[in-house]
């Protein structure tokens, strides 16, 4: 918390993050327009995960938050991942 007011609030950093996000968006549009079969979903999701990471770290300042919040966010995503995996184990091997 102590760092939020000073670090990570630079306009230039935000602008760079936006450019990266827009480049990634273009990349995902281009990649998915080429038919790569099962890889298409994988690429699109990978790019989405990177974009989400950038938004959470920079725009939502998680990077400069305390360790408790970082662990909580990591925990929530891990929990969701487990829910997805367990659901699919049930669905595919029933």
């Amino acid at each position, binding site marked *: *918390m102590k760092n939020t*007011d000073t670090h990570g*609030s*630079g*306009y230039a950093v*935000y*602008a760079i*993050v*936006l450019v990266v*996000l*827009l480049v990634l*968006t273009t990349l*995902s*549009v281009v990649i*998915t327009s080429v038919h790569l079969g099962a890889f*298409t*979903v994988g690429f*699109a*999701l990978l*790019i*989405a995960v990177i*974009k*989400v990471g950038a*938004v*959470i770290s*920079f*725009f*939502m300042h998680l990077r400069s938050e305390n360790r408790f*919040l970082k662990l*909580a*966010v990591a925990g*929530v995503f891990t929990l*969701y991942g487990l*829910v*997805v995996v367990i*659901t*699919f184990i049930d*669905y*595919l091997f029933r």
Partner: protein
Amino acid sequence: MSKHDVHMEHIDRDTGKLGMWIFLFTEMFLFGGLFLVYAVFRNGHSEDFHAAADDLNTFIGTMNTVFLLTSSLTVAMAISAVQKNDNVLAFRLVIITLLLATLFMADKYIEWSHEFRSGIYPGSQVLKNMPHGELLFFGLYFMMTGLHALHVFIGMILLTVSLIKIRKGNINYEHYLLFENSGLYWHLVDLIWIFLFPLLYLVT
């Protein structure tokens, strides 16, 4: 203000923000559940999902992604501006954010109107005659983008309240928790769209 008061306020801000994050976690699971339904149905009806997703307008979807990503930037910058005691800049940046949000909603209106005119809307005869997988896709499409649009709308209300308070000076470099939390909510709206966009529009 005594040293004790400063300390108390610091704790309030921390807890206020933690509360918002916990609320955002519940929102992630709300949409996460829908994404899971999408994943399971897609697995069982991949051909139909391909065909149905092809009907969506990728250009409109891409434009909306650009609008939301840019609006996330302007909100983040506006919060920095408030922290730097520049309410005038913050005010302008929130106005730009609201304009981008309006563009997003206008796009959504055009998109949905077009679909409704082609007879594609929940419960329509056209939809009922489609293969089962396409029916499921469009059901999820309207549910997910509709729920997301509702979140955009709520975010716009929160930002408008913040805008008024920035103007009045009730939100300033010392007190900006409401604005910071509204910003977090706005970023969540962006996060959800980052997943919705490729899954509904791109992976055809």
